[in-house]
């Protein structure tokens, strides 16, 4: 395995008296799929929100390829190559799928406000380039059919895919997926597993995800990190973590 792309050290944050995340550390290696698992309230999504700088940690360090993320403004995270999806889907509802994906390319814009107001030929050229990039994502995720539909009218499963597509359109180095299979049926979950594998193997994107569906987790993850009550309780291959006594206890409770 190659070097760590994302390095998280001694990360802690608390909300009021609740220690949401305490002293969490892990490394995401270049080109792997690392999955965070854990019961509800374990702090998995909080870790995501800390990495995308929505929350400010009380202590600890997060570095992407040597760049200290805690010194970077929240909107600069995307430009560094981190894209994410949200647990409850945060799409731009009253825009078309195409527009959503184009917004995903925002960090790659090359035109300024004045050029855009006049729609100079450079803007048209750049728009074509962005469109080509978006079309590749549409091809990968089979979204051709929904290109011009408003997100507000799409079924849940398709929205999940659109959100994945929007993150991919940014051409990230690290993709954060927050429960990619929640709310999907068996068939859709199957597709999602294939896509995650394709994203890692063909696009070379490193993936960090939060997921509850253990079948999906074992299928796509290279490594798994289990959390409970804000702390890391186990890490290793999917099989190792599933068999780990602390993980069994966290999910099922102690044997009587």
């Amino acid at each position, binding site marked *: 395995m190659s070097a760590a792309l994302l390095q998280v050290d001694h990360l802690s944050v608390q909300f009021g008296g609740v220690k949401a995340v305490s002293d969490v550390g892990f490394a995401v290696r270049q080109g792997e799929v690392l999955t965070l698992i854990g019961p509800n309230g374990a702090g998995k*999504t909080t870790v995501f*929100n800390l990495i*995308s700088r*929505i929350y400010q940690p009380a202590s600890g360090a997060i570095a992407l390829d040597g760049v200290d993320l805690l010194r970077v*403004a*929240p*909107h*600069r*995270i*995307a*430009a560094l190559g981190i*894209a*994410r999806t*949200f*647990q*409850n*889907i*945060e*799409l*731009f*509802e*009253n*825009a078309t799928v*195409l*527009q959503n994906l*184009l*917004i*995903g*390319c*925002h*960090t790659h*814009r090359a*035109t300024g*406000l004045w050029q*855009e*107001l*006049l*729609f100079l030929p450079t*803007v*048209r050229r750049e*728009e*074509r380039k*962005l*469109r*080509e990039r978006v*079309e590749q994502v549409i091809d990968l995720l089979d979204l051709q059919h929904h290109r011009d539909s408003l997100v*507000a*009218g799409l*079924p*849940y499963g398709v*929205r999940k895919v659109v959100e994945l597509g*929007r993150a991919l359109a*940014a051409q990230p180095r690290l993709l954060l997926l927050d429960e990619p299979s929640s709310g999907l049926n068996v068939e859709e979950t199957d597709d999602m597993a294939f896509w995650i594998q394709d994203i890692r193997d063909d696009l070379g994107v490193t993936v960090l995800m939060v997921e509850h569906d253990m079948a999906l987790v074992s299928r796509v993850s290279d490594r798994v990190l289990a959390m409970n009550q804000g702390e890391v309780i186990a890490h290793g291959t999917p099989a190792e973590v599933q068999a780990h006594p602390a993980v069994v206890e966290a999910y099922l409770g102690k044997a009587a």
Partner: protein
Amino acid sequence: MRFLFKTDYDQDIRLFRHGGQRFWYALLGIGLVAAPWALSEYQLAQASLICIYGIVGLGLMLLTGYTGLVSIGHAAFLGVGAYAEAILAARGWPLPLSFAAAMLLSAAVGVVVGLPALRVRGIYLAIATLAFGFIVEEIITRWEALTGGNSGLPVAAASLLGRALDTTAEFYFLSLACAVLAAVVVINLLRSPTGRAFIAIRDSEISAQSMGIHLARYKTVSFALSAALTGLAGALYAHKLRFLSPDQFTVIQSIELLMMVFIGGIGSIHGAFLGAIFIIALPQAISGVRPLLPEALASAAGLQPTVFGLILIGFILFEPMGLYGWWFKTRTYFSLFPFYRRGTFKRRKAFQKSERLR
């Protein structure tokens, strides 16, 4: 019904999507240019006002309809633009220069008002803009040396390249040109990354930020552009009325402007102009109907605001997409005829949005 077979990305980038659209807009263009020969002097003056309100509508639409920031203080920007133009024109500035200055000044004021927008949202922002509206109204009233205060400020007719535009037709063409330019600029913006960033901020700030959109910067830009457009409308307004006084730029006027974009159809360019037509035509329609009403009702002082309010409530209840939504559905009905179903535009269940992040 028309089926579009797309073979080129440019088909989604162009101003006009297909030949039919090009044809109808060309026809509309010819109609607008020929209007001075077809309409009476009075109707033409109303048409100029529609252009002016249409520009305000575009500005407010950009801010409220596309960026999702509600402003109840837009009459203040109209006032800033109007007084700037009146004062600069009186000092002998040529029209393109004074118009640009009026827009820049409005934009600068817009940036200042936009600053609280970076910290507050929703109803709190609306209150902040409301306060701003009061402040500007008060400044206009008190700064008598510059604005003439309550006794008002007379404005000369617009003059372009040494030629006074003092006929109704000439002024109509000036307003029309400004309105068309403003519309094209706004459409350009909306088909490029900045406009999409506005839409992103409107629909989900949290994910807009995760996509790399600098919220503070784009909100400020939106305020500045919206104020600049409203300032342009204000400059035209000054020459249209030829007399300015603080009571033209009150908060009531601001609310009326906001109602205009809501009735026109929030989140559409058409809506800005449909709303402007509505707001200019309604008083005419009411005065037309007045003789038919019973005496007590016809002479009632609050008739117009009441009708206005009722219509607004009607739209909010039955057609939240405003006049544009209504037009869109009617058009779809005919293009799908006889296969239109009542549920065609019914919104499907909106899924729970993440609440923990706001």
